[in-house]
């Protein structure tokens, strides 16, 4: 059954509380939800700057996450280090194409896409970018929901380091894994602190 009545009027004056989903009247500055009493939004400038700060931190972390080894293999005293891309290449050469593609998407493309989405949303709040408001909301929703998938590689490395823990051969997580986990964390914070009221046109 479809909710047939769609209201076009004054859509931008009403906002949705992210905690309890109640509809609230938009005001300038701070808004407290009328139902759950939680602070929905701080001042718009605060939100913009916070999103930007978290995003910058995440982008900076993206480099050590990719250049430092995420996985270190110690085989009979010989140490071999693998970065994320290196690991994907090993998988590809071994013929595990689906897994290689999953990891490539989750750990290389998703973070970059998320950076681009957030930058795009931030730019579109300042300048008039031609695309509908609803598309931007959808973009924001996608950004929020795919973000945590980047953690797959970090989890895989920790699982492997538990399982491959013999005297002859050992796998240990590398510094890249920590940087990667932190990067995902800051990207998520950035998306969560983005004020959807900033989406205007």
């Amino acid at each position: 059954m479809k909710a047939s009545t769609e209201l076009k009027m004054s859509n931008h004056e009403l906002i949705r509380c992210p905690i309890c989903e109640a509809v609230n009247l938009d005001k300038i500055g701070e808004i407290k939800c009328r139902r759950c009493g939680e602070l929905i939004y701080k001042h718009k400038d605060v939100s913009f700057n916070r999103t930007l700060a978290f995003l910058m931190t995440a982008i900076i972390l993206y480099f050590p996450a990719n250049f430092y080894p995420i996985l270190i293999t110690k085989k009979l005293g010989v140490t071999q280090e693998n970065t994320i891309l290196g690991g994907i290449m090993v998988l590809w050469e071994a013929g595990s194409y689906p897994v290689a593609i999953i990891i490539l998407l989750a750990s290389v493309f998703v973070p970059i896409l998320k950076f681009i989405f957030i930058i795009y949303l931030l730019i579109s709040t300042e300048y008039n970018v031609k695309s509908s408001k609803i598309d931007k909301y959808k973009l924001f929703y996608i950004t929020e929901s795919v973000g945590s998938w980047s953690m797959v590689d970090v989890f895989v490395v920790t699982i492997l380091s538990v399982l491959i823990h013999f005297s002859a051969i050992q796998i240990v997580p590398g510094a890249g894994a920590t940087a990667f986990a932190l990067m995902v964390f800051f990207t998520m914070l950035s998306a969560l602190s983005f004020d959807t009221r900033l989406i205007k046109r």
Partner: protein
Amino acid sequence: MKKHKLDNLIICKRCHTLHKKIKLHRNTKALCKHCGSVIYRNHHNIIETTLALSISAIIALMVAFSFTIMTININGIYQELNLTALFVVIFEQHFYLMGIMLGFLIFLFPLAILVSIILLLTLMHFRRSGYLVKRLLILTAKLLPWSMIDIFFISILVSMVKLFDYAQIEIGVAFVAFILLLVLDIIINKQMRFNELWRYYESIYGVKNEQS
């Protein structure tokens, strides 16, 4: 109880289209006119069903966290994967920051979410302590994006594929519990609408009208 005029409206989570609520038949759902996602549903005894599901989920979670997820066998040498071993190895390697992050993302947050859901639904069922229910509703909503149990399970599958050529893999009890937990989690997330819970909250404990 004074009903707020804004309570007849609902905004789609995905595309932020504003909708006016209409009365639904029993066990039907309303879809967003613009993007087609479910915006609200009429679910009778939502509290009791969700409570039963959450209790099953927390049992599955306990099993998934305390027993063996899988055992690998490389030329007769066995190695076991369970959550305790995972944290022991991470801290042995001095990856403290990552250990703490993992502890929260795959253990503490999922557990806290389920405990808080069970607690708030139980209190709502017995119509007790409204203030606590309110805090728990807020807490649950805030914790939800930070549970990564589903991604952890995908990672287990990816690790299995990676090890396939080198080792024999035996699936443990916790692996089955994980699948059960995820299925329950999906059902709970699908039917537990915060909007509905808050409306129940208001109908049970009354509305405090601080502002109009």
